[in-house]
């Protein structure tokens, strides 16, 4: 149990007050009663079996923040980091601010924010490993870093930047509500440390002494509709009509209509203040921590497309693609696709902080889009594998009928699971906290890529063979060109409507679009031209003439390069452009602009700057994997294979059970 001092100051003690039955979200504040199986259990904090004596243990608790009073003294952040022993580059709680007005009628509103222990914790639902739990005790959403495999998906879905991905450690950790303090009736360290009379804590909907408001929103805070957060605000001072952020996020908050109380998120046209809007290429900035995903998604989509063509093509008259017509090429291509997809899956795990724990991705099939994507891709991959081994003849010792039945079964299952996997993949990006992604364009892009790359790869491989054989290629390439046209049109339509959506919605999505048109201005234009050129070239190939001989093939090869480059740039843009609905940062802390600068200038080499010197920690991840796997092996050796298998079985059962509970 957390040790309480005899003379613990009053301000650190959670008042025991009456609250309404339901929160402002309309949900019960009491999370479990005496009859519940969740009642009367120990949180087992650090293995301590005792049960806390807080009388309101099963009520949802939350923070109350009086924005009028916050002085940005960092005491809350520091008390948190001190208690949780955090390195400088991580913080469970952060104070950022928005400011507005004109000297001396200037106002700054500071916002201290950690985890809001939401009623609808999107982190918990998004996490593929089920590292998150929402407890009946205090309604705390706790995350277990030991379960986490460091995919960072929770950091994508959380609108408040609460989960902290430590790239160095390869895992996420976050605010734990100081449940050890709560168990003995004390407020969390942060609220107890507040020096401005701003941050407080209690049963949700209970207003601290002297406070008159418990609002759900203040400027800079993402709409509570996304997660139903357990934080309430007081903000009574009138604010300037426009508030800006000190970080480099091109966002401002404005009151646009007379009498309107709410601030709207708008793009801040950075650089327009000084008349210097900078358009650039910024190719270097296209590379990010998400690089493995750029390749993983493109390859997976291409592989699925190519397989669909190989399998379905002959049924639609493209005989030259069949095993019968080109057994060697067909089989080689199948094997290549298998290897390619294996490679894609491999690099996707390199996106993890703990690649060797990839199997935990299946833990949350019930809620997590990541789990579903991984599971459906795994099905596709298995089916593709089954189809390939039965097709290339590894099972020819079985009766022919059996083999062909199996091959057909695998093939058709792969035909179904492939596109399903891409649908699941697209769902990953439909995140409310990332409005740039949250559009159907993701789906058209993924399916578009499937058609375009699938047709391109199959077309190029088989036309090369046809050319070698001395046959014409247009019979193959014209339909392939149509498929590419279809894919490119799909992509184009998506992008067209996406751009319209970005401009219209005004919020972080529009800010992403602004970055797209400025920082990546030239890159964006060239990508669009690339798409247009590819489309016209493919259309010309489909309608007019596909070209023949070496010249024709070379033309297709050239187009292939253009398409691949366009796709690569487009997909990289997709990842680097996203602007989450996070809280405003400060001038240095939580300012991506400063972080970039610190990395480039070398300032980040000093650990006390609080910025990790780079974003790529694959080597560390591999070293960690090697070390932990070695430890696993030793454990297995120590406890014996039988027990280990039993454990495995138990875990598998839990995963299955979790799917239905």
């Amino acid at each position, binding site marked *: 149990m957390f040790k309480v001092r005899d*003379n*613990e100051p009053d*301000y*650190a003690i959670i008042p025991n007050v009456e609250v309404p039955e339901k929160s402002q979200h309309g949900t019960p504040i009491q999370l479990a009663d005496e009859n519940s199986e*969740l009642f009367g259990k120990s*949180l*087992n*904090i*650090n293995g301590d079996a005792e049960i806390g004596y807080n009388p309101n243990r099963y009520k949802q608790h939350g923070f109350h923040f009086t924005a009028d009073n916050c*002085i940005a*003294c*960092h*005491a809350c952040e*520091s008390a948190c980091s001190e208690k949780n*022993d955090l390195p*400088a*580059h991580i913080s469970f709680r952060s104070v950022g601010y928005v*400011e507005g007005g004109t*000297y*001396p009628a*200037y106002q*700054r509103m500071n916002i201290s924010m950690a985890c809001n222990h939401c009623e609808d914790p999107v982190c*918990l639902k998004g996490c593929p490993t089920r590292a*998150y*739990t*929402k*407890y*009946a005790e205090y*309604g705390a959403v*706790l995350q277990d*870093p*030991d379960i986490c495999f460091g995919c960072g998906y929770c950091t994508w879905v959380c609108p408040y930047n609460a989960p902290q991905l430590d790239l160095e450690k390869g895992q996420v950790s976050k605010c*734990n509500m100081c*449940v*050890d303090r709560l168990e003995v009736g004390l407020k969390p360290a942060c609220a*107890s*440390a507040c*020096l*401005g*009379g701003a941050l407080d804590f209690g049963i949700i909907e209970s207003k601290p002494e002297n406070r008159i408001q418990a609002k759900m929103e203040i400027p800079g805070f993402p709409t509570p509709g996304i997660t139903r957060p357990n934080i309430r605000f007081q903000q009574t001072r009138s604010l300037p009509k426009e508030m800006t952020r*000190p970080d*480099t996020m091109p966002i401002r908050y404005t009151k646009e209509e007379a009498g309107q109380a709410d601030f709207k998120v708008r793009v801040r046209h*950075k650089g327009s203040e*000084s*008349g*210097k809007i900078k358009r650039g290429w910024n190719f270097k900035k296209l590379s990010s921590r998400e690089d493995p995903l750029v390749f993983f998604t493109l390859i997976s989509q291409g592989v699925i497309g190519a397989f669909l063509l190989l399998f379905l093509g002959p049924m639609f008259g493209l005989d030259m693609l069949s095993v019968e017509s080109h057994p060697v090429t067909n089989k080689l291509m199948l094997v290549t696709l298998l290897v390619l997809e294996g490679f894609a899956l491999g690099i996707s795990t390199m996106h993890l902080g703990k690649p060797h724990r990839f199997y935990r991705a299946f833990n949350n099939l019930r809620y997590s889009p990541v789990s579903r994507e991984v599971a459906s891709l795994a099905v596709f991959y298995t089916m593709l594998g089954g189809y390939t081994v039965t097709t290339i003849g590894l099972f020819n010792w079985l009766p022919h009928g059996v083999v062909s039945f199996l091959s057909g079964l695998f093939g058709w299952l792969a035909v179904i699971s492939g596109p399903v996997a891409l649908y699941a993949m697209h769902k990953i990006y439909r995140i409310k906290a990332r409005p740039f992604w949250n559009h159907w364009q993701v789906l058209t892009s993924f399916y578009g890529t499937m058609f375009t790359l699938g047709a391109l790869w199959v077309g190029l491989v088989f036309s090369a063979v046809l050319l070698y054989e001395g046959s014409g290629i247009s019979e193959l390439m014209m339909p392939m060109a149509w498929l590419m046209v279809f894919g490119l049109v799909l992509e184009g339509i998506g992008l067209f409507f996406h751009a319209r959506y970005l401009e219209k919605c005004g919020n972080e999505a529009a800010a992403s679009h602004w970055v797209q048109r400025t920082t990546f201005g030239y890159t964006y234009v060239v990508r669009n031209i690339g798409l247009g050129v590819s489309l016209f070239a493919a259309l010309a190939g489909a309608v007019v003439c596909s070209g023949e001989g070496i010249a024709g093939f070379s033309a297709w090869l050239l187009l292939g390069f253009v398409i691949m480059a366009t796709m690569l740039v487009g997909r990289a843009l997709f990842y680097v452009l996203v602007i989450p609905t996070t809280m405003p940062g400060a*001038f*240095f802390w939580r*300012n991506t*602009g400063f972080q970039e600068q*610190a990395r480039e*200038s*070398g300032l980040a080499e*000093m650990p*006390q*700057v*609080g*910025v990790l010197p780079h974003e790529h920690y694959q080597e560390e991840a591999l070293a960690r994997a090697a070390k932990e796997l070695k430890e696993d092996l030793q454990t297995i050796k120590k406890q014996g294979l039988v027990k280990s298998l039993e454990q495995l079985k138990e875990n598998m059962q839990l995963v299955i*059970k*979790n799917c239905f509970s």
Partner: protein
Amino acid sequence: MLFGRQKKNPVKLPDKGVVEWKYTTCGYCSTGCSIEVGLNADGTPVSCRGSSDADVNRGKLCIKGIFEYELFKSAGRGTVPLVRDKTIDAYKEVSWDHALDRSASEIKRIQETYGRDSFAIVSTGQLLTEEFYTLGKLTRGAIGTNNYDGNTTLCMASAVSGYKRSFGSDGPPGCYDDFEHTECLMAFGSNLPEQHPIIYWRLRQVLEKRSFPVIVVDPRVTMFSQMADMHLAITPGTDVVLLNSLAHVILKEGLEDQAYIKANTSGFDEFSELVAQYDPVSASKICGIDEDTIRNVARLYAKADSAMSIWTMGINQSTHGSDGVVGINSLNLITGNIGVEGGTSLSITGQCNAMGTREWSSCSGLPGYRVLEKEEDRQYIADYWGIDPEFFPKKRGMAQTDIFPAIETGEIKGLWLIATNPMTSMPNTARIRKTLEKLECLIVQDAYQDVETTEYGHIFLPSGLWAEKEGVFTNTERRVNLVNNVIDPPGLAKPDLWIFNQMAKRFDNGQKIRFPETAEGVFKELGELSKGRMLDYSGMTYQMLEEQCGVQWPCTEGAVIGAPRLYTDGKFQYPDGKAKLIPLDFIDNNEKPDDEYPFWLSSGRVVEHFHTRTRTGKVGNQNKFSPTPYMEMNPDAAKALGIEHMSYARLVSRRGDAVVLVQLTQRVAPNTVFIPFHFHDCVNRLTLGLLDPYSRQPAFKQNAVRIEAVEDQDAAAVRNVAARTY
């Protein structure tokens, strides 16, 4: 579990495994918070928390206190004494005996060659009171140089000087408890929420219970300005004009406390004659505060049953800092707001023991608020120490800010710097470099070996810091509080008290005078020397200090508690027992913006850093909030110059240039920029630091600069990184 995994691991929370909490007092600012340092089973300090029983901080700590335990393992600590012949050589590790012998022989050589005062000693506000007293004893009694001062000249000298001029003695008359009683609070150039967050919290607690006008005078829209009821955005350097005009209105409208003035002050006629010239209409043209506001504030302040003023560097660090303090004191004298509950003139002090050095270090005189100019004081101390009173000079020597120019001109040849870093803290860095280069011997005594000044040092003496030692600090409200020894200094580093004692042994007088080995032994001398005086320590013991989490002086022998306020009887320290009302002419001598240098440049602090970052720059969880220097600049001004947010800009003054990251904000006026002073090779490359005629404190806050956009941002970034070793 509402949802989550079926089978849960135990909840794992970081546990630092504290087994013991040791009581001590924070070593950063002068708020004087009681801290408990948590030690784990290995005896390693792993945590800090505020003491709940302490009246000052009532269990709270600010960011610096929260992470203070990290200082014990911070980078750059000095662990071995170092010596070198020339500054172009590399330092060599030596024994303490070697380093001390060398130091003593260099001091003696220089004194013998160039005269006793040609060796100067500059200390700090960071040492413990027992160490200050011992250093004073060593300097005044054994080494015998009159050029001895502390870096407090850069922060509190004006307050000291102003108190002395108004009240006949130093000593802040009020306390934090005055917030509980006051009906009007006026803050001059003080940004409590950032500079003294715990004092701000004390004020905040009162404001939660009842409201009274809080008026902040500051050219910058600081956090305190925003939290205030009224913000007076004054033109830099014109506080005296505002103060005179406030007094003008009060006297003109008959709002003064006639009875108090008559009974307890002198000089009223000259005073009222002068302030008569500062009618709000003319004053508003100079200080930039409109006449209605001046009248409004004057009435508010004078009519309040009790009103208090606080101030910090906005007043102290200017060419009329001492005058500003006198003006504030006079405002409170004419309204009868001295020595009453809620009515006071309270300087919010800077360093943890700036008060201790004022009281006991003998920098500006002799220990216990005694002065060199009085024969009786010289005699008394000489007798107590057992030396010839003729060994003392009869007049105070140079202040820190005069010592450096004297090195420049060759008058001073040797310098002993103790826990101060003039390479970063003094105005006009280029001049300081040139100055330090000239020294025949520079002894640097510091806890940190990487303190920038070691670049010019010949001898480095590694000392312990904060709770690696034992002794007392005095805070802003005269509260003496105990620093317990939590762990020992690293390596061969030693407590400063030990170093002074060892040094004393190497001087003739040092062998005559008693130098107690322990801090508590020294503390007893303080009690004896202060018995019956204003700053009476005689009733205090270490045990009492810890039990009460600090005791305010005066605490006479046998007293159970200290006294919260001074001058409650209206008796002041001037021989006639009266406070002086001093007329203050406004002399406009600041370097002001002009066509060539069109911006005001002001420097100041940020909450996460302290002084020259030798400590805070190494604690990641503090440093990360401002890891590199920046400039607050108005976006409208920046637009005209084509300067962007988050870009580097170059500032040029008549002294030099600096390259700094730009933060565009309306917090500052279009013709003003603000740069934190903590960073090496930055704002003090630009500052002029014109001196106050009384306190010799430099005007860090009023300088003129030109600003240029930087074309090659990469080169600017490289230049900035090169200046940061921590």
